[in-house]
């Protein structure tokens, strides 16, 4: 990539960022908005620098909990979807209950999670898994159901077993959907982990809780900024795996030549 091409790639997302940061800084400096409503970006930046060790440790704790939660919801969600896709009856019986996970307001059941799982990491992981499981189930199920009929016929013609059809046809065919479900789920897992930490303790959730108590809104925003970076990291990781596994055959990941 030439310097100019690189600039053309980075400028469009960079401009709104620079503009909004500049606007926020001006608004606070000129006291259009009080600094207890919106902190000046320079304050947030200073808080990021001053508290970098504590924020870094908290971010790592949140990221690892979110990752474990995501992994759990990926395993459970995929197994559940495979089971449902294999039988119409099972799908009709159980799918509505999967929607439950989509609609449950996690903040209202979080105190119960503490009673079930105890304080600390198990509660955080459970919270991350609960909020992130539905998009995985929905997308995986869609993917498994949309195998091309002609290919299914072909497999039948060669008298492939059910397991062979699943592993060699239906799952590979569903991969793009599975990955798009994972992408949505990975951002949600970070949110779920932080909500879990509000109640269960630890990580960025605790940092936000404590900063709110001290009315350190700059630290609240610093933590929020880091949590969105964590979301980006997870989505990026999913994209990377997606490119690795789909790159050589699926249109969605193939590089234009």
């Amino acid at each position, binding site marked *: 990539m030439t310097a100019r091409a690189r600039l053309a790639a980075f400028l469009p997302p960079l401009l709104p960022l620079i503009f909004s940061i500049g606007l926020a800084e001006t608004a606070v400096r000129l006291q259009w908005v*009080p600094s*207890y409503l919106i902190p000046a970006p320079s304050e947030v930046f200073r808080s990021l620098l001053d508290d970098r060790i504590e924020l870094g440790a908290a971010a790592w704790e949140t990221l690892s909990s979110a990752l474990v939660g995501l992994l759990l919801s990926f395993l459970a969600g995929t197994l559940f979807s495979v089971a449902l896709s294999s039988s119409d009856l099972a799908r009709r019986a159980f799918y509505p209950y999967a929607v439950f996970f989509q609609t449950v307001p996690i903040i209202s059941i979080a*105190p119960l999670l*503490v*009673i079930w799982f105890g*304080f*600390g990491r198990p509660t955080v992981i459970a919270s991350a898994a609960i909020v992130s499981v539905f998009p995985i189930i929905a997308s995986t199920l869609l993917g498994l159901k949309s195998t091309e009929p002609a290919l299914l016929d072909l497999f039948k013609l060669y008298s492939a077993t059910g397991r062979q059809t699943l592993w060699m046809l239906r799952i590979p065919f569903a991969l793009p959907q599975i990955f798009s479900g994972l992408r949505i789920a990975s951002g949600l897992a970070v949110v779920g982990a932080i909500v879990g930490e*509000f*109640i*269960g*303790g630890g990580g960025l959730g*605790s940092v936000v*809780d*404590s*900063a*709110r*108590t*001290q*009315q350190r809104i700059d630290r609240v925003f610093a933590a929020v900024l880091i949590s969105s970076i964590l979301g980006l990291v997870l989505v990026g990781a999913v994209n990377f795996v997606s490119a690795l596994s789909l790159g050589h055959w699926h249109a969605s990941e193939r590089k234009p030549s």
Partner: protein
Amino acid sequence: MRIVFSLLASIFLISPASAAQAPAVKLQLALNWKAEPEFGGFYAAKLAGHFDKRGLGVDITEGGAGTPVVQMVANGKVPFGIAAGDEVVIAQARGADVVALFAVYQINPQGIMVHPERGFKSIADVFNSPGILAIQSGAPYTLFLQAKFPKARVKLVPYAGGIAQFLTDAHYSQQCFVTSEPLLAKKKSAAVESFLIADEGFNPYGTVVVARRGYVEKNQKQTRDFIDAVRAGWQEYLRAPQSANALMVKLNPAIDTETMKEAADVQKPFIVSTGTQPADLGKMTVERWTTLTNQLQEIKLIQSKPAAARLFQKY
């Protein structure tokens, strides 16, 4: 131009000066929580007409979790508000010129409540024994206790409010107002022991009436009248809390009449001690403010120390 300006002023500022022509001056007192005995004297002052008598039409507004009372006062949204002593110091250290005028609680009722079976004798025992302590992270009293007991064996967890977890878990201790949660737990027939954080040496004034310095200096008579009425209201409430309690039960049905009455009794020693003259209610000393300021600096909640004498005014 003048018209535009005064129009803008009337929109953006709820300026008491502009209401001065009216027979009664309209004032607002912003609470930082729902109506409860902690604020009994303010409601009593209103009911008994102590504000009206002085030409003040006072509107008491309830708050909730996260109501930014100090900021509302600092920005002139309301003339008077309720805050904790430590909030006043922190506000001044960050450049907001808010002063304390009247302190209801001379002894801070913030405490730790535990199950008596554990045999704890003090907060030190709570910290140095295994178990769970639910406490608001980042709060001044939490930071103070963490600094005082650095080798704590207890596991600190977030405090989500209420006492549900306390009732179900024998190893669970939690923060409380000794005038509130222990009463609730006893109502659920749980045995409770509670310790004051003040006994460990951290004792900020509680339920403090605050105002902006600029406001106080500009409205000296009004402020004096307001505080006089508040003191009269508290004298009233300490003597006969029934009518104020009845009003507060209506405003905040979460607390029943019996609990209101009980809490009003329990909180008395935190407001007056033996030998307190009625005229001494709400008084503060420069020594107490100095101690608090030093403590807040030690736990790094403030970088610069405001002068203790500028934190409060005597009325």
